[in-house]
């Protein structure tokens, strides 16, 4: 099982720093990493990731420059590009596939794209090797969860984690504000979802301390750490220093 799925915002602190952060993550033994493509209107993000996106945009991290910065990188975990639909829609599927080809991006997590809204765009990208990560929220009934997992199918056990996992949103709300998230309902939820699917599950939104990361692992799922990591990096800490305790 993948022990941790970290989230970084591309371009924060800078695009120049990105290759080193990614190789650092790889050196820590991480299979996969979520990379945020900064957007002007991140409606599902809390204050920490909003601020990171705006710092990145102010620093010139446009979608094209981020993808250029990723082109040719091999010393990196598999990347899940985490973003909102509009920038990708403006690039268009045909051009996006070409831009993604030389990068370590293996899947897309588009927060505001439920299955069925852009079927041609989604099918085109999936066929090219860029599946959309299924998102399962606390409000998602199990019947709908089953449908989401079918619409965004598991490419099979030989595919990498980045292309297989489903993202379990641990609680209501936006990223990063989960002070003391009660993990008991999360555990019940993960158990219910594990009865539906054999795919790997990642659990995110508001996890930060080593104890809750470890608790998610005991559920047989991969914890996502996002806002806490982005905040610590912004405070000048190093990636290894931040992540190593949570990996033990």
């Amino acid at each position, binding site marked *: 099982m993948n022990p941790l799925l970290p989230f970084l915002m591309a371009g924060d602190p800078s695009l120049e720093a990105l290759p080193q952060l990614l190789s650092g993550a790889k050196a820590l033994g991480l299979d996969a990493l979520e990379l945020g493509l900064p*957007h*002007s*209107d*991140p*409606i*599902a*993000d*809390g204050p920490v990731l*909003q601020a990171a996106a*705006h710092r990145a*945009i102010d620093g010139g991290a*446009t*979608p*094209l420059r981020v993808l250029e910065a990723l082109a040719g990188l091999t010393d990196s975990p598999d990347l899940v590009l985490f973003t*909102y*639909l*509009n*920038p*990708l*829609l*403006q*690039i268009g599927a045909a051009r996006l596939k070409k831009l993604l080809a030389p990068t370590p991006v293996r899947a897309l997590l588009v*927060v*505001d*794209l*439920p299955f069925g*809204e852009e079927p041609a765009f989604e099918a085109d990208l999936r066929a090219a090797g860029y599946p959309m990560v299924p*998102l*399962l*929220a*606390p*409000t*998602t*009934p199990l*019947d*709908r969860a089953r*449908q*989401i997992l079918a619409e965004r199918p598991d490419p099979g056990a030989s595919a990498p984690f980045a292309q297989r996992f489903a993202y379990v*949103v641990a609680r*209501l*709300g*936006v990223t990063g*504000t989960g002070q003391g998230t009660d993990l008991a309902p999360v555990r019940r939820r993960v158990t219910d979802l594990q009865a539906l699917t054999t795919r790997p599950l990642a659990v995110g939104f508001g996890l930060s301390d080593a104890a809750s990361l470890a608790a998610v692992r005991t559920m047989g799922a991969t914890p996502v750490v996002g806002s806490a990591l982005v905040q610590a990096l912004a405070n000048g800490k190093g990636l290894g220093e931040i992540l190593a305790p949570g990996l033990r």
Partner: protein
Amino acid sequence: MTDSFALPTRFGAQQLGGCYAPETLMQPLFDLEAAFRAALGDPAFLAELKGELRHFVGRPTPLTPAPRLAAKLGLRALFLKREDLTHTGAHKINNALAQALLARRMGKTEIIAETGAGQHGVATAAACARLGLSCTVYMGVTDMARQAPNVARMRLFGTKVEPVAAGQGTLKEAVNEALRAWAGRCDRAHYILGSALGPHPFPTMVRTFQTVIGEEARAQVLEQSGALPDTVIACAGGGSNGLGLLVPFLGDGLRRVAVEAGGHGKALGEHAARLDGGRLGVLHGCKTLLLQDEHGHTAETASISAGLDYPALGPELAGFALDGQVEVRRASDEEALAGARLLCETEGILPALESSHALALLSALAAEGAATVLLGLSGRGDKDLSTYQSRLGI
């Protein structure tokens, strides 16, 4: 519990609209559509809504002939649909009250809303006070400053006004924050969106609750003048008063016009004119005409009127515009100010800055051959007095 939508979610040849929502909000949106459909089929709900619109809101609103203004502009006749005379002073209350009744029916105890000009916020605050619902309104800090009287009114009605400091501090940021808040409290809160925007079912629901404007106006103009006008016109922020007025006239052979904010220039960032300046894109849960930069980031906007200062045109109105059923025009800040002054001087009515954008287009319509015009006066201008004072030097 339903897990799909029953109503059409898309508009026009370009299939605008849709439901581009985070997964957390999908089930709440399915539930909302189901509750909306059930309410529309329930005579008790419709009777309650009708009663409240009559006794609380003050409907039907008058249709006022404006002969002195018509003469000045070279029109044969001009009729003003007086949404400014509703309780709280703008058309926003038609939708806010209806959604508040729906929320109560759904067993929701809290209301979340965004506001730009503050009219939707005030309307929602008033409806919540009347129905005993707790209410939080998100408002950009720029708008709080320029629409200060409305902030005080909301607070008097017991609503919590949450300042939103991000970005330009206007309507777009307020919607961002309201959507975030709803994702956190969707188990107990209903989000009353104030314009014909957002993910399905909001655009359809808001338009449905606003068409009372056009239904009344159509009957009134026939009664007063014995004929339909040759032109019907309204201003367009997201498009709720525009659709509300224009939709009941869609089957008629006349010009339907919506007026966007031309701001103070033609460059991106200087206006909120989405038809000329926008491209199709997705913002706040729907696909529509959107002011955006080359990266797909939402562009900045500018308008003297907070209620029109928004980067996206509502998807249904954008669909009508692209399909040629509604003409979308623009009026600049200066033209809107002049339009407001002229109405004040000729008819003794102080319009909202938003509504003044429709007034500003009247002389152009007359020059293009319009003779009889019905104009949606979406709101009153008391909230804009300080802007009028400083910009008109009075």
